[in-house]
């Protein structure tokens, strides 16, 4: 069944080509996109069962044995990330299709929207599946290039302004990543993650620390970890609502995923754990203080996004099974809830004509369903029991207390404070946009049901994760144990000790 593994990358890429070929017929494009992303979702669900029962699934691309050829690996973590990302991508796609129908598709350059969106999906899948550092870089570049196009869609002045900052910062992080790849290759002679896991411990500890710092810097820019997060709240809010939603849900999480891989598979001596912990604490605090000061709902959400990245980094930096497991759980929760909130913000903008909290008001009266969904998601983000945000946070706090070091306890305290401030920030938004009397009459429009549907579905998935919280926590526990044990991953890739299962003759021991 390993033939399933490349499909999440191949299907969207092929579909992107098809969608570009029929660029004049938006209905055909929509059908192609939905079919492709649904296929990815089905494959991802199949992979999650497969990896859970039969261990990591590995494909040696082109049948070249692993250290020489490129390996695509789906382990528990990758499969879970694939399922959640495919779900979110499908939901946002449905939302943007409905938006296209509602707006009549006039005046917007939709022809490139679907192909680019599919390329983004392929890039995200590739980043999750890659078993090779350079292939991970290529995956990042694919999703970044697609995100550049999506962010500057239409080329208005504001989007070009925000886009130039985003593009330059992203290029810088890619260069850092590329430099670390070159240095790692020079130090070890391989880029296969499994082989790196075996060889990096033999590298001199000073050099290893340098490699780790370079790699984490590149990933931390992508994940928006303070102090490398300033680009995010400035660039995301200007993009169209569905684009912001999918960026907020997925792109930063790809960075977090890469940090998890680096910290669990490649660099296990834990020298930078305390640094990451401090960065996590700073990210939580700075992000949420920024959010409290905002008067624009999209910017407010962008700052909470930065702040909650801190929770995930906190779990990773604890370097324990429970911390990592809670971190993975939190990623799943946060992808869904943050995407839902940005989609709802798009609907608020449609209904109220603005995203400024100073001008909005009385939305709970004119759009009660929207109000209910926003309220649920906001409470979920703040971590009110019994929703999934609460389960994620309680897991992280538990792990922090288990670790018991002074710094970890500070992290626990900061986590609680951040949760409280998140509640304050979202309740402020709820009061101003939904509860208070509007300062001026709202425009007389209606939110199309077809757009509300996907947003409501993603929001309820975010809440309902709590229902499967027990099984999901079991799954993330297993995933975290696998990650920290490292042997399941390495043995799955390098089945014959030093080489993979491919047919290529004379792999020469993988000396590169």
């Amino acid at each position: 069944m390993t033939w399933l593994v490349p499909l999440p990358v191949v299907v969207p890429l092929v579909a992107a080509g098809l969608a570009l070929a029929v660029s004049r017929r938006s209905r055909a494009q929509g059908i192609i996109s939905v079919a492709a992303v649904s296929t990815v979702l089905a494959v991802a669900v199949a992979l999650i069962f497969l990896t859970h029962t039969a261990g990591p699934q590995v494909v040696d691309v082109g049948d070249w044995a692993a250290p020489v050829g490129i390996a695509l690996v789906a382990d528990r973590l990758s499969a879970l990330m694939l399922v959640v990302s495919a779900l979110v991508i499908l939901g946002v796609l449905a939302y943007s299709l409905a938006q296209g129908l509602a707006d009549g598709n006039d005046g917007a350059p939709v022809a490139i929207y679907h192909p680019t969106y599919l390329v983004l999906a392929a890039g995200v899948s590739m980043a999750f599946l890659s078993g090779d550092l350079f292939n991970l870089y290529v995956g990042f570049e694919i999703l970044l290039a697609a995100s550049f196009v999506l962010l500057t869609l239409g080329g208005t002045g504001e989007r070009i302004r925000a886009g130039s900052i985003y593009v330059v910062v992203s290029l810088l992080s890619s260069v850092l990543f590329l430099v670390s790849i070159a240095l790692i290759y020079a130090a070890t002679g391989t880029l296969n993650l499994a082989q790196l896991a075996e060889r990096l411990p033999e590298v001199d500890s000073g050099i290893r620390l340098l490699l780790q710092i370079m790699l984490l810097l590149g990933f931390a820019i992508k994940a928006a970890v303070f102090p490398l997060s300033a680009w995010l709240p400035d660039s995301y809010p200007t993009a169209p609502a569905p684009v912001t939603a999918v960026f907020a849900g997925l792109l930063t999480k790809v960075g977090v995923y890469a940090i998890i891989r680096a910290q669990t598979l490649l660099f296990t001596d834990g020298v930078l754990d305390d640094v990451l912990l401090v960065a996590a604490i700073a990210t939580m605090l700075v992000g949420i203080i920024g959010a409290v000061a905002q008067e624009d709902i999209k910017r407010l959400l962008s700052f909470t996004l930065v702040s909650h990245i801190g929770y995930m980094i906190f779990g990773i930096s604890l370097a324990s099974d429970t911390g990592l497991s809670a971190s993975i759980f939190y990623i799943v929760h946060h992808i869904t809830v943050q995407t839902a909130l940005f989609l709802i913000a798009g609907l608020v903008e449609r209904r109220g004509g603005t995203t400024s909290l100073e001008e909005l008001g009385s939305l709970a009266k004119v759009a009660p369903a929207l109000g209910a969904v926003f309220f649920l998601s906001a409470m979920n983000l703040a971590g009110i029991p019994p929703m999934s945000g609460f389960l994620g946070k309680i897991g992280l706090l538990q792990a922090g207390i288990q670790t018991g070091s002074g710094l970890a306890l500070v992290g626990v305290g900061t986590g609680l404070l951040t949760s409280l401030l998140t509640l304050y920030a979202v309740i402020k938004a709820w009061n101003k946009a939904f509860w208070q009397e509007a300062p001026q009459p709202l425009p007389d429009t209606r939110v199309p049901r077809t757009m509300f549907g996907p947003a409501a579905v993603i929001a309820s998935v975010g809440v309902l994760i709590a229902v499967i919280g027990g099984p999901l926590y079991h799954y993330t526990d297993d995933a975290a144990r696998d990650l920290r044990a490292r042997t399941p991953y390495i043995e799955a890739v390098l089945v014959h000790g030093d080489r993979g299962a491919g047919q290529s003759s004379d792999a020469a021991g993988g000396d590169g």
Partner: protein
Amino acid sequence: MNIEMSPSLALVLVVGVLVGTGVYLLLERSLSRVIVGITLISNGVNVLFLIAGGAAGGPPLIGATDPGEMSDPLPQAMVLTAIVINLGLTAFVLAMAYRSWQLHGHDEVQDDLEDRRIARRAALREADSRADDVGTDLQTEAAEARDETEEAPAGTPEAHTPEDHGGPITGGDR
């Protein structure tokens, strides 16, 4: 097999100069200089890959060279990939710089909203020591706030309006 791994000083110097000048240009405000900077940095990193591949040998073709004397083909393949990616992204940034010139008559990266807001509040505070303008919203402030890039110097072409294929697009649509 004894492999010579100490890199050539000339190559290291080339990397240093390319990346150094690239970083300098990256810090400029004009997007076209930023592009040149990024290109220089990426080329510096490409040379770094050559260093990572170890000492140069014969062409890595089976039959043409003894395997012991081949140069490492993997970094070359990676450099090729990196060059292609960089070409595509440079083209995109160039297009973005051109669009910026179309819209504003220059291609300079503008201050972000928060910076402009802070600058405006500081100016207000200086003006009448009273800066509690909480009532205004971000869009109004953004429209009113000026930064140094917005004063179009004389002689630059006038800002074009968005053409019809771009459409008058506001924040909510796509």
